[in-house]
């Protein structure tokens, strides 16, 4: 059913079936759009850094704008110690942003609207941050669960809450992005279907909604990429600068 608003999230394989033992690793439309996003980023950055002009052209200006934006975000939230992780955060932000934005194109596929994609990223960040924390501080890193200045009576409770909140980081990080993307695209699809079903007379209202929602979704696409990146920075900050 083409009007099913969830149809747009369907994953199907493109080309031959690739199997590694019992595991299906076929190239799918999701993989295709990941590839498109990655290639778009590369192309954009290639043309954004090709010329070494003192006065930048437009693409160069935008590329440098992104660079400075991420650099400032990292130094603001995680300090100078997080500088080595700049390429990762930059890649993460650009990838999520481009996946979200390319998902806004009609008939495209939104990679980030799949929980498994966001979960893999969030879990990687979670484990990486935890490993970094333990490498930097050893077992002292566990003191992140014991906030300073808490009354002793409340300490066991607070510690349990802190542990739960720490462990729920990958879930909240992944579900936030996934749910936002899925909800937005579903809404767009639903209002789009209204336009068709209400016809020429009644379709104007949902159409205007649809237009407004498109603008909102573009904002959300950027915002969620930003939130994803900045939360990664904040987690990184916890690992790098114990008890800020």
């Amino acid at each position: 059913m083409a009007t099913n608003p969830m149809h747009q999230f369907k994953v199907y394989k493109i080309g031959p079936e690739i199997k590694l033992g019992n595991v299906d690793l076929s190239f799918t439309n999701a993989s295709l759009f990941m590839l498109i996003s990655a290639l778009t980023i590369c192309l954009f950055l290639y043309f954004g850094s090709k010329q070494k002009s003192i006065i930048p052209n437009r693409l160069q200006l935008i590329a440098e704008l992104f660079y400075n934006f991420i650099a400032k975000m990292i130094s603001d939230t995680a300090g100078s110690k997080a500088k080595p992780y700049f390429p990762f955060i930059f890649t993460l932000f650009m990838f999520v942003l481009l996946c979200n934005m390319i998902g806004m194109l009609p008939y495209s596929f939104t990679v980030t609207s799949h929980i498994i994609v966001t979960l893999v990223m969030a879990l990687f960040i979670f484990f990486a941050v935890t490993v970094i924390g333990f490498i930097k501080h050893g077992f002292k890193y566990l003191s992140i669960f014991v906030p300073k200045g808490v009354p002793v009576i409340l300490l066991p409770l607070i510690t349990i809450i802190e542990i739960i909140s720490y462990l729920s980081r990958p879930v909240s990080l992944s579900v936030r992005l996934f749910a936002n993307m899925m909800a937005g695209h579903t809404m767009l699809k639903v209002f789009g279907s209204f336009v068709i079903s209400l016809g020429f007379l009644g379709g104007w209202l949902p159409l205007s909604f649809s237009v407004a929602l498109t603008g909102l979704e573009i904002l959300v696409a950027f915002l969620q990429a930003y939130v994803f990146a900045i939360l990664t920075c904040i987690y990184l900050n916890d690992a790098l600068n114990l008890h800020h």
Partner: protein
Amino acid sequence: MRLKIPFIIFIYWFETLLFAAEAGMPQLDSKYWFSQSFWLILIFLLLYLSLSKFFIPKIKDNLDDREKKIKDNLDEAKELSELAEKKSLEYENEISNAKKEVIKIISESKKQLDKNISQKKEQFEKELEKEINKAEKEILDLKKGSSKSINLIAEEISAKIIEDVTGDKLNNSSIKASVAEVSKNKIGKYL
């Protein structure tokens, strides 16, 4: 009323949406989970490597270059402006020196001129005095000479007049005596 119809339809659609989500959210279909994870990790890794090894250093280079160039230009501008200030100070110094020199030259030449003028004046005055003295002496000589010749002329004229009038010739000594007497009395009046 116009708002109500879409709202009711929206509720209807939302229910079917929820139903659809319950019935089959493609996201929860685990069939392609491994495939998606695999391709995500692969593509993200490649993207990360190409960005961190190639694109990010390039952008950083560009930015650093620009910053360096701007800083260099600013430094150069500062240097140049300092140089210009120095030069202008030098120039002002030179001008004030020149002005002082000009004042000196003017006063010196004025002094020299004054001196020259006074010298010339003195010389001129001396010469003038000399000339005056000379002239006075000449006049005095002339006076002396003229009174004698006047006497002589007067003697001659009076002898002739007497001869013409009387027909007699008076002796010279008496005429001389009378002329001398008259001229002694009157000559002071005319000379």
